[in-house]
């Protein structure tokens, strides 16, 4: 099941906030508008995929402080920081805290549009990636300890005979374990299997 992405818009200026909402409308995503960072933090559900567009200077918590709070909670939400005036130290801090980009306000042409699209794409990809890794780990978990041994050796390129010699079991036993490795991991070739293992390790 794919969750619909949400663009969170945090800006204390109503005009800015609603114009970003309008800008995002053609992207077929949900939007949620907040007039302060505090409000956003109170309402944010980390399970909900999407991206964040926040103003830098706001009454109350600033955009950078908001990034710090998200960082403390271990939340990696793709974030675009908007600022009418950013200086170098603020920009560096925002980027260190994982902001995707920092745009001047008002931004040029399609800068903001492109940045939001990219943020959503990045989020989608990383979410899908995470889901795939979870799924691959699920497959690998179904293997028995003996099957895992065989899997390691197959991936390292050992032929069945060599595996049988190493494990001091019969060639038939190796062949049977080998079959269930391919079955359980839903792979057919050694190359596919090697790729799956590498992917599961996040490589």
């Amino acid at each position, binding site marked *: 099941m794919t969750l619909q992405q949400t663009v969170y818009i945090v800006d204390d200026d109503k005009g800015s906030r609603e114009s970003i909402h309008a800008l995002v409308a053609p992207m077929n995503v949900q939007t949620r508008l907040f007039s302060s960072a505090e409000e956003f933090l109170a309402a944010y559900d980390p399970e909900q995929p999407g991206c964040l567009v926040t103003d830098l200077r706001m009454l109350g918590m600033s955009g950078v402080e908001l990034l710090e709070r998200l960082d403390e909670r271990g939340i990696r939400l793709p974030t675009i920081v*908007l600022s009418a005036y950013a200086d170098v130290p603020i920009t560096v801090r925002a980027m260190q805290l994982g902001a995707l980009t920092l745009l001047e306000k008002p931004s040029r042409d399609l800068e903001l549009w492109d940045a939001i699209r990219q943020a959503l794409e990045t989020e989608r990809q990383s979410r899908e990636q995470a889901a795939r890794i979870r799924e691959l780990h699920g497959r690998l978990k179904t293997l028995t300890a003996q099957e895992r041994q065989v899997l390691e050796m197959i991936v390292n390129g050992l032929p069945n005979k060599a595996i049988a010699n190493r494990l001091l079991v019969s060639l038939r036993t190796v062949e049977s374990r080998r079959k269930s490795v391919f079955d359980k991991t839903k792979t057919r070739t050694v190359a596919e299997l090697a790729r799956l293992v590498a992917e599961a390790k996040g490589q």
Partner: protein
Amino acid sequence: MKTDLRLLLVDDNPNDRHLVRRELGKEFQSIEIQEPINWEEFQTALQNETFDLVITDYQLLWATGLDILQTVRQQRSHCPVIMFTATGSEEVAVEAMKHGLDDYIIKTYDHLAWLRAAVRRALEQAAVAERTESLEQRLANLLTILTVGVFRCRPDGQLLDSNCAFRRLLLIPEETDIRGRNLSNFFLDPVEAGDVAARLQADQQVRNYETRLVREDNATLWVTLQETLQEEADGTIVIDGIVDDISARKQSEESLRQTEADMAHMARIAAMGELLAGIAHEINQPLNAIANYSVACIKQLESLPQPELAGVREWIGQISEQATRTASIIRGMRQFASRQETYHAPVELNSLLVDTSNLLRFELRQSKAKLQWDLAESLPPLVVDRIQIQQVIVNLLQNALESMENVPKEKRMIRIGTRRCEQGVEVSVADCGAGLGDMRPDQLCQPFVTSKPRGLGMGLPISKTIIQTHGGKLWGENCEAGGAVFYFTLPLKREGNV
């Protein structure tokens, strides 16, 4: 006891001398009398200066009273001489009076009583004369040592007298006669020169004013001139005047005024900066909304293929573009306004120019304008605020590019030059564009004055302020071959001299 009278009594007749002694004894309690009876004794007495008054007979065996009078006058000009004689005549009396005799008394018993009064009067006159002379001497001394010029002139300006300082002030040579000069000729303003007396109103005896005079060498001085109308004892009108050279004060006043004007200018720029920062802040938010809504419209319209919407798409594109442009103007203004603190560090000017021109490579490529470099070698490093000087260079290059919009692309060329100059280093940026037109050089750097249809008129004023705060100058002029050239100078700063 103080001696009331020290008398030189010249008379050959012992009886007459006795008579005089007795008569003056009635008037003066203590008298010291010398009675020379020949020329040598008279000379000795004269040299010793041991008398205050001379009474002489006219007919002497060894001289005449006239000889005595003249000899005394030569050496003691103020010493009163009274002739007391029975042998004289009217002619003698007239002759003697012409030679400065104080009184002439006929030696008869009837006139004897007059002698006392004559002596008393002569002594008083002598005292007055001496005091007058000492005052005159003192006045002359004062006038000589005075640093202010003092003069006296006739109502038509004809000079009658002046002190040394007056001559020094106007460089009038010592040997020339001051009476050959007229005060009016020294005035710079011919209207002010006019009739000196006319400047003094009937009800105003003294006039004190500042004016400019021209020295003999044609240099101009600022002076205060005080003129006083004086009526002499004989009824003639003269003007006594005092001239004081205030050129130095005027100069410092002028430079103070200039400094104040500069300060006021800086203050206005700063105030404008604050205003701009405020405006920039307020405008940015709605501008941001405009830009975002424009993009939203464009994106929404992309899904509507109707050809009649093509124009709308283009217009909204324009809205977006104009909003972006407005934003960049405001950003520029704000950057200037917010730059209160400056950071000065040694900068190699030639490489700064080259680096800065790279910032405009996109604009240069679009315009196809060629850059021609004419950089002086081994320029000393300058201690400047790099960012600010960069701002100036960008401004000048942008102006140059914009001025060449109507020049065929293949002819577009900007010459950038550096050279050592008296003030330090001079940078020139010359284009072959429209030139400055009929804009006056002093208008060039005034805020909001622009020849560009889309210009804000802030670039050059900001640049000029930046250069001035660096102690340099910025100016522009038309090139002889067409186009305009802008120059700015930056002073050399020695290390440790921050």
